[in-house]
């Protein structure tokens, strides 16, 4: 008697007692159990289990439970609806909502990365500062290599940085100063803000905010 036979028979043992197997299967099981003590023992266990299950007292349900269930389900649906945004999208639109939402989340994550990454913050701050300058001042500084560098940095941070930093003027110093203030206000590390050639290196690579502010205040712009 192989184990494989027993495995097959086991699947039929309960069916034998339930009367749900075919006549042919019944004969196979009976032939097998007559010669297999293990399956016979299993069949006895099944008989005991089914007998015990038949004698189990039924569970009870509180009176009127099923009469009251629907109103309670309805109340819950109503309550649940109030928590949701009351927009009923048509079915065809709903099919696109999940991928669209996923795309929006991904796009906003990418946006947040660039917005809050130190370099993006620098670019953003530079754009803001430059755009706040009076037109004539921008035009004036735009003629200088420095301001061109600053403007270039606002859009292309890696390009012309060296050039910009090598030629600091009053305007760029002021811009840098504002930028540093901006960085301070946003709590970002200043050391990331500018590269090594930065003329303000001795100031802004210092992580001690108080000393940076002091040095900046002492710097004549």
């Amino acid at each position, binding site marked *: 008697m192989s184990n494989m036979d027993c495995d097959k028979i086991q699947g039929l043992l309960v069916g034998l007692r339930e009367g749900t197997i075919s006549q042919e299967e019944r004969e196979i099981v009976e032939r097998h159990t007559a010669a297999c003590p293990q399956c016979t023992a299993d069949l006895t266990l099944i008989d*005991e*289990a089914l007998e*015990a299950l038949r*004698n189990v*007292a039924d569970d009870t349900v509180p009176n009127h439970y099923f009469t009251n269930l629907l109103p309670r*389900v309805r109340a819950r*649906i109503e309550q649940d609806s109030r928590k949701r945004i009351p927009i009923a999208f048509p079915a065809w639109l*709903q099919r696109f909502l999940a991928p669209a939402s996923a795309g929006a989340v991904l796009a906003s994550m990418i946006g947040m990365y660039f917005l809050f990454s130190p370099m993006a913050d620098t670019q953003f701050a530079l754009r803001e500062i430059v755009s706040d300058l009076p037109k004539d001042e921008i035009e004036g500084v735009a003629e200088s290599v420095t301001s061109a560098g600053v403007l270039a940095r606002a859009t292309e941070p890696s390009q012309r940085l060296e050039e910009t930093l090598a030629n600091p003027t009053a305007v760029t110093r002021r811009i840098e100063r504002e930028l540093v203030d901006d960085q301070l206000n946003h709590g970002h590390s200043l050391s990331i803000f500018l590269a090594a050639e930065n003329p303000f290196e001795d100031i802004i690579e210092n992580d001690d905010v108080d000393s940076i502010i002091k040095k900046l205040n002492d710097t004549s712009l």
Partner: protein
Amino acid sequence: MDQRSDLELIREFKDGNDKAFNLLVLRYQEKIYWVVRRLLPDHDEADDVVQDIFVKVYRSLDSFKGDSSFYTWLYRIAVNLSLNEIRRKKTRRTFALDETVAQHESDEMLPLERMEREERTALIKEAIERLPEKQKKVFVLRYYEELPYEEISKILKTSVGGLKANYFHAVKKIAEYVKHGLR
């Protein structure tokens, strides 16, 4: 009794007849309650899950495509939410014997006979509660719901052969547990 089929009611619901959902609830509430109750022996827990099931059905009915029968789909939701609740609780409670005693007292039974029956009942329920998840699902759907294996196979997305083996092991474990408990 409403003669409309499940699919007709679902179509009506999708067309805006909200009341068609009520008929589906009334049609299946008892069956679903008992499936859940066999998996979660506590009535209050079962009641909570049953409500969740019908709320979920209400929310998802629009997306029901009819690939399987509504009944299969509903049972699948019921079994899954019940098992989620079991996992969430992660407590193996002992069956409340006192409650059973109070509920099933019969004046016709002798005290000793009644006590023995209650003890057996508690043991069986405990045995079912202790079954591994898969075996428990199969056992409840097969033994209590008397569903054919083919139907259970659609609900649980498992092969008929696997279900038969699970059912066999479930019944055997119950017998062994009861035998050991009564010794």
